[in-house]
């Protein structure tokens, strides 16, 4: 049956994939930090001097057992919120996080009204 054939191909394709290397968490942090002297690159992608230094600092802090949030908070206290790519949820960024969902709800409401109107039209 088609489903079986698909399963077999799937299995063969997926098999070679492997598990993650150890320092994925480090890379994740690097990706969330902005290289301040580059034009729109993360510390993970940048080859600049600043990126090199910052990576060392992050490595030290991770080894000390600091959590991701602690590291981000520390860097934000030194460099401002601009250095992290995930904007923290606070009164400055509240709108940023809230608006998309608000629009989603609004859109849903509009569609609901349209469908109801359409039902009424059908009934008439």
């Amino acid at each position, binding site marked *: 049956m088609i489903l079986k054939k698909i399963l077999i191909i799937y299995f063969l394709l997926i098999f070679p994939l492997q598990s993650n290397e150890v320092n994925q968490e480090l890379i994740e942090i690097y990706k969330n930090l902005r290289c301040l002297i580059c034009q729109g690159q993360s510390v993970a992608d940048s080859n600049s001097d*600043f990126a090199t230094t910052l990576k060392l600092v992050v490595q030290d802090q991770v080894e000390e057992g600091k959590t991701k949030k602690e590291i981000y908070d520390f860097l934000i206290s030194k460099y401002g919120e601009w250095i992290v790519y995930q904007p923290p949820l606070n009164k400055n960024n509240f709108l940023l996080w809230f608006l998309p969902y608000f629009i989603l709800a609004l859109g849903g409401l509009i569609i609901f009204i349209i469908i109801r109107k359409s039902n009424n039209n059908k009934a008439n």
Partner: protein
Amino acid sequence: MKINFSKIIIFSFVVFLISVFWMGLKNNNNYNTKNLTGSEISSFKLPSIYNGDIISDETLKQNQFTLINFFASWCAPCRLEHKYLIKLANHNKDIKILGINFKDKKKNVINFLNELDDPYDYVVEDQDGKTSILFGIYGIPETILINKELIIIKKIVGPIDKKQFEEILNFIQ
């Protein structure tokens, strides 16, 4: 009535959007770390390049004012601001200058300071640059003026120019 209300909202929103874009065009302030002004510096410990003595934030508490200057022998703009550092060193007010040598080689620094005169009361080395992050540094040269309580009064990104030099003088009067 409902249509009029949404018309007003949409028009206002568009006017708002365009105004913000227009203002965004005019004000092009670059990123800086002026937000650090008013906060206390972090604790740090760095070895002096001359005798290995440890200089820390505690050391600086004895000074009325300390000017912390991040520099390196390989940094061209550092040479531009050097004359202001010398002037401050010769000033009769109680301001001490701490030079933090960033990612450099001892031999090169000593040559650099011999060549240009040494304005620093202390020179320490930050070999891997990690301490600079504690100070919110992202480029060289950068300078921080702190008071006796180790509070940051002024942060200068890039070489000190005449205007900033005069501002420093005003602060320490």
